[in-house]
């Protein structure tokens, strides 16, 4: 496609001269996160002097590099083409350095001590395809306007690295205190479950909140919220799976059943529990934020956001606190019981989430169809009346792309895909504007319309 013949139009909603107040909130949250990280790591190092304590201290630099790289990378896409490449390279270098440093710290101070770096690497490799599959499915759930891969991956990376870092420190302190003060048994289990539910969901949820505040143009509604939340959960689940697999391998290897123990963990977390556990919990936080995105009143927005967090915390708590009341027999029927346990304990939450998702997809689709028709009625040429039934159906959109592929190969396929994507962006912009949900100027909509018209010149009539 000859896109180089014209200047890339500005992003959906170009920056206003004065940034909205939500950017200030995002900066405040980020500052609190950084201060918490620094304070708790220093405290851990001074008072605990354990492996997590050292990890937390040495890992700070990695967390800072990843945070900075993420910010530069995400913002690069709202800049003009000339400076975008420079910012993306900077972001890539920072993210690469941060990731390497983090893996180094983790490997040396945690995994190596329990099972060695080779086992840690094998466990990580085993979890990669399943997590990638999970991210692929989660992103595909948004049938109308898929979220950019860069943001989905950023969400997963934050879930894996930043959220787990926050959790290690908070949970270590909680556990140490509870172990020294409470009566061992169900009370201590409940306390630990409260700790996991509260701290882990808050840590994961912060990433979704920051996306909601900073990347508003790519955070349209409940569907987007569920996608981002689930991506954060999948990232968290990835690193937790690697940690548990490696740890259990280290524990049971002297008994000759190390790989069996690690394999069971892999199946429980990356197979059976891929969509049931952390993915479901954090997706509820995203759902709350996504619904808040479209609510008119501040009070309702606050209730929706808090509700998302409360549901996530309760779902997580119920699993951790009550899983012991669902014993697994040491027989062949135990295999059935493992599946039943997940289905009964987490299934209802996942089903509730799917209900929100299905309704959200249909609601979004209807809103977009409404806007397709209204845009077609203006006669601007961006969306033609005959485009409406095609754009309204993901299957028809796919058929149109495949027809283009038959006519003109991959190039034609992608040209049509870009056009469809731009038309969907325009309809989404119109939808938010009609609902008075955006704080950006009208020029953004005109720019999108012009982009569609320009793209149409390169695409033969379908």
């Amino acid at each position, binding site marked *: 496609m000859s896109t180089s013949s014209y200047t890339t139009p500005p992003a959906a909603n170009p920056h206003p001269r004065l940034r909205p107040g939500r950017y200030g909130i995002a900066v405040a949250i980020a500052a609190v996160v950084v201060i918490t990280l620094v304070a708790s790591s220093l405290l851990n190092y001074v008072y605990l002097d354990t492996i997590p304590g050292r990890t937390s201290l040495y890992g700070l630099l990695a967390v800072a590099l990843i945070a900075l790289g993420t910010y530069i990378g995400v913002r690069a896409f709202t800049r003009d083409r000339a400076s975008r490449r420079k910012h993306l390279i900077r972001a890539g270098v920072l993210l690469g350095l941060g990731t390497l440093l983090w893996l180094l710290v983790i490997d040396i101070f945690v995994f190596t001590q329990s099972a060695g770096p080779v086992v840690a690497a094998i466990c990580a490799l085993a979890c990669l395809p399943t997590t990638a599959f999970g991210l692929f499915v989660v992103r595909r759930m948004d049938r109308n306007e898929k979220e950019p891969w860069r943001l989905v991956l950023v969400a997963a990376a934050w879930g894996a690295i930043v959220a787990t870092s926050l959790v290690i420190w908070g949970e270590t302190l909680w556990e140490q205190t509870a172990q020294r003060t409470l009566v061992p048994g169900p009370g201590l289990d409940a306390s630990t479950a*409260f700790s996991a539910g509260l701290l882990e969901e808050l840590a994961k949820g912060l990433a979704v909140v920051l996306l909601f505040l900073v990347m508003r143009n790519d955070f349209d509604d409940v569907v987007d919220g569920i996608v981002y939340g689930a991506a954060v959960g999948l990232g968290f689940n990835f690193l937790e799976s690697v940690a548990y697999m490696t740890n259990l391998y280290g524990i049971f290897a002297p008994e000759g059943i190390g790989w069996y123990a690690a394999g069971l963990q892999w199946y429980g977390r990356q197979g059976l529990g891929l969509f049931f556990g952390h993915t479901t919990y954090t997706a509820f936080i995203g759902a709350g934020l996504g619904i808040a995105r479209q609510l008119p009143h501040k009070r309702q927005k606050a209730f929706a956001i808090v509700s998302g967090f409360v549901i996530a915390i309760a779902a997580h708590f119920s699993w951790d*606190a009550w899983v012991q009341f669902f014993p697994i027999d040491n027989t062949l029927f135990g295999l059935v019981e493992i599946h039943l346990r997940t289905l009964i304990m987490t299934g209802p939450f996942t089903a509730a989430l799917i209900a929100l998702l299905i309704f959200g997809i249909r609601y979004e689709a209807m809103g977009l169809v409404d806007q397709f028709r209204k845009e077609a009625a203006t006669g601007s040429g961006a969306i033609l009346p005959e485009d409406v039934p095609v754009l309204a159906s993901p299957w028809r959109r796919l058929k149109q792309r495949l027809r283009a592929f038959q006519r003109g190969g991959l190039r034609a396929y992608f040209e049509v895909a870009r056009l469809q994507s731009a038309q969907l962006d325009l309809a989404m912009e119109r939808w938010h504007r009609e609902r008075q949900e955006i704080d950006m100027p009208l020029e953004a909509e005109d720019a999108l319309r012009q982009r569609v018209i320009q793209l149409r010149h390169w695409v033969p009539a379908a």
Partner: protein
Amino acid sequence: MLEQAFLDVLLLALKFGAPRVVEFGQTSFSLTTRGQSIRLSAAVSSAPYDQVQTLYRTLLVFATVAVLILAVGLVEFVHFEPPGQTTGAKARIVGVFVYDPATGTTLGTDRSAFARTEEFAAVVDWSGLPANLTVDARWYDAFGSMVGRIGPSTPAQLGNFSIVPVKVPQGLHHNLPGNYTFVVERLQGGVPVEVLARRLVLVERQ
């Protein structure tokens, strides 16, 4: 409000079966379901119902259930950690020593770390406890599983059972590594309500 929310959840279920676009006039139309059209009056239908409110109310219903779950968790916590259960009694843990299962005796000096191949046991002095208490002593491993216990009974009856060994889990050759917790507890109604003494021990990986 709550009733409205439950109606909306019901409505949400109906929507999955029959979503459709309902047109009003020639240019403007509202997006409702067949079920929703029944519920809305004619006067209301001229001002389209915002379906985000349905999502919002559904979320509130889920949140209400979530609050109930957390409340049950809190009740469970209070039941097993009842406040005000302090008798002032303190048990004395003499120490944790290497244990010889053949003779049933302990060896060496008090330690706080053991290799996983070593068997070990705690020694409790029951003599300082009031005679009317019901007590026991337990070992928990790093996974929270009970791996050794004596009691429950009165301190006098437990006087001859001062050694509480850790048992290797069935099917394994050695103790699992991690932090072990030894507690002497006071029981009430069969439920431990107070820790009279506590000792943490590390079983090393290597």
